[in-house]
């Protein structure tokens, strides 16, 4: 139950705000490369700024300020001929990386990209997509660093066959077992959570102690300031940013990265286009249609009654808190460990930017950003005594068998 002043401080991202300044010190996903097949320029609405992405005469991407049209909605994609570039507006550095156009809206030089798997992998092994959530970026991020919620919000009352699970979250079996993840999440709802501060943010370990001295180990990560890296299946991880459009809307941008076969982008895009409208990437299930809520499904199949797509569950949970979660009425508990550690990092960063101490931010200053690899992100079942070794070795094994250079040693 923090004060309104502290809540504003950690959530609001307009130009000149402390949290906005922290985010502006990092590369931000600005558009999907697939959006650029439309005629240029295209609108980019990022961190409260109205921008346009086009190409200059040399063929380089250029991100500049554009004129806001009268009565323009927050989420809007005007046609190219409607976009007017501001003569005296800002121009920002842009970098293309595995399906996403990243932009740097901060002062000074942009930082290096860390050597994360999603950036190192061959283009054939990464699929990028995005989706709109109508809420503040911080609550969107915080659900992603709460390992306990999956046992409730994403509870499936029975397990599906792993066949046909391609491209979907929580549908695979655990490495070297035939136990579906949905079974583990449902039967062991109270994980022991361990959080460690790292060079890149947080490493979050959720241990679900099972029968016969075995433990399910799920390792996820917070990548500072607003991304997560989580396992999706035995083969794939998801690196996902929660990027503010303004204070009350955000896009998730995800890079699905495969350590095995090349990603079947067509299947994954078709799955997701079924659920989203273009050009806004707004989900078809939303507040207006009650997120597709079906009481009979809730009785027999899922915890939420909102279908099998877990993104919808998360979307409902975070949008349901209001556009900016009222943290003056919030009571975190000790199981919210990762959220607590994350807010501590964020508050330290807010202080650092106010003191003009950019070097104190994670992955800035003297940090050897390019040497940061990984992060480890997997689901395993281990004998409880050796859970760390089992998870670690499973990661090394997957890396060793990978067709692109995923080595970390």
């Amino acid at each position, binding site marked *: 139950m923090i004060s309104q002043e502290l809540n504003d401080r950690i959530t609001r991202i307009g130009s000149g705000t402390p949290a906005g300044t922290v985010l502006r010190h990092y590369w931000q996903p600005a558009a999907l490369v697939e959006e650029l097949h439309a005629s240029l320029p295209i609108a980019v609405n990022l961190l409260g700024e109205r921008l346009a992405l086009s190409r200059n005469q040399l063929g380089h991407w250029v991100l500049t300020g554009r004129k806001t049209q009268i009565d323009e909605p927050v989420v809007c994609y005007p046609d190219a001929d409607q976009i007017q570039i501001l003569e005296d507006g800002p121009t920002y550095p842009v970098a293309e990386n595995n399906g996403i156009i990243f932009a740097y809206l901060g002062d000074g030089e942009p930082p290096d990209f860390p050597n994360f798997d999603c950036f190192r992998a061959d283009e054939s092994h990464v699929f990028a997509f995005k989706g709109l959530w109508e809420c503040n970026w911080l609550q969107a991020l915080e659900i992603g660093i709460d390992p306990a919620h999956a046992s409730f919000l994403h509870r499936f009352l029975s397990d599906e066959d792993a066949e046909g699970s391609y491209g979907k979250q929580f549908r695979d079996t655990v490495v070297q077992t035939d136990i579906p993840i949905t079974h583990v999440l449902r039967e062991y709802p109270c994980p022991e959570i361990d959080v460690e501060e790292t060079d*890149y943010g947080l490493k979050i370990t959720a241990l679900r102690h099972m029968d016969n001295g075995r433990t399910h180990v799920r390792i996820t990560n917070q990548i500072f300031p607003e991304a997560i890296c989580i396992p999706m299946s035995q083969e794939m991880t998801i690196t996902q940013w929660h990027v503010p459009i303004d204070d009350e809307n955000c896009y998730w941008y995800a890079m699905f990265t495969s350590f095995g076969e090349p990603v079947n982008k067509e299947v994954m895009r078709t799955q997701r286009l079924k659920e989203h409208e273009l050009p806004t990437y707004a989900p078809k299930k939303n507040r207006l249609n009650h997120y597709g809520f079906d009481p009979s499904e809730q009785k027999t199949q899922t915890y939420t009654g909102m279908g099998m797509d877990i993104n919808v569950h998360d979307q409902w949970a975070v949008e349901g808190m209001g556009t900016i979660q009222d943290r003056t009425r919030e009571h975190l508990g000790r199981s919210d460990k990762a959220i607590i550690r994350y807010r501590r990092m964020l508050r330290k960063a807010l202080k650092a930017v106010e003191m003009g101490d950019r070097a104190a931010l994670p992955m800035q200053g003297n940090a050897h950003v390019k040497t940061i690899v990984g992060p480890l992100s997997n689901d395993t079942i281990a004998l409880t005594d050796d859970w760390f070794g089992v998870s670690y070795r499973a990661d090394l094994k997957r890396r060793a068998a990978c067709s692109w250079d995923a080595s970390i040693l």
Partner: protein
Amino acid sequence: MGCFDPVNIVPIEARLFEDCVDGYFPLSVTLAHLLQRQCFGSALIAIRVAPMMDIPNLESGAPVPLHINPLYSGQIDWLVAIARMQPLGSCSIVSGWAQWHWNDRARDKVSRLPHSLRLAEPAYVHGIGFVQGHLRTRSLGRVKLAETSSCVALHMPNIDLSDFSTDVPQFDTVESLCWSLNPTYFLEWFDHSVVGSWGCRYSLNLGNGSEELLLVEKRCEVIWRALISDTRAYTKRSFDAVPA
């Protein structure tokens, strides 16, 4: 180098720890829970950038209101304190240093934090915890003499160990970090030790020799690493740095 008599150095049972404490209770209650959970008699703790509140006329056992009045809230920028278990299961904060601000700027003129202080949300806490024993100390209450070696020791002037076993284990003073409980050193040690190089900035600056001093051996690095296991396992540098 100040005056420093190795005879007065007593290795004690202690452990580096990190934990997540509840908010909402008075801080002394929150810290008593921490000490009980970790089985410590006392602890030197550090808290960084944590929201706090102090609600007037709220009984210590009463629940916090559903909604916080902004005037009652603020932020601890940093706090270093010794928390000590009291006989009845409560905890007292013996001494501490902190920097903070209240939303109600008028309150910032008061240079003490109130006894009724509460954390406004759960907080990450780390520090050095001391196992309870029979050795009476001024700053840490009763602590336990280390049975074998320990990387934590107290320098205690005029100590009388005649009641204890005669073979007090060795403590290597040359390679140790040392504080007369200076909060800045403590904070820096915790916040930068994992990232930066170890200890070389700290020298044995022992003041006038009449105070109790906390000594932590540099070999603690190994313990610290064990505690945080592979925090930096995914940076190439830290792989090089992990001791064989």
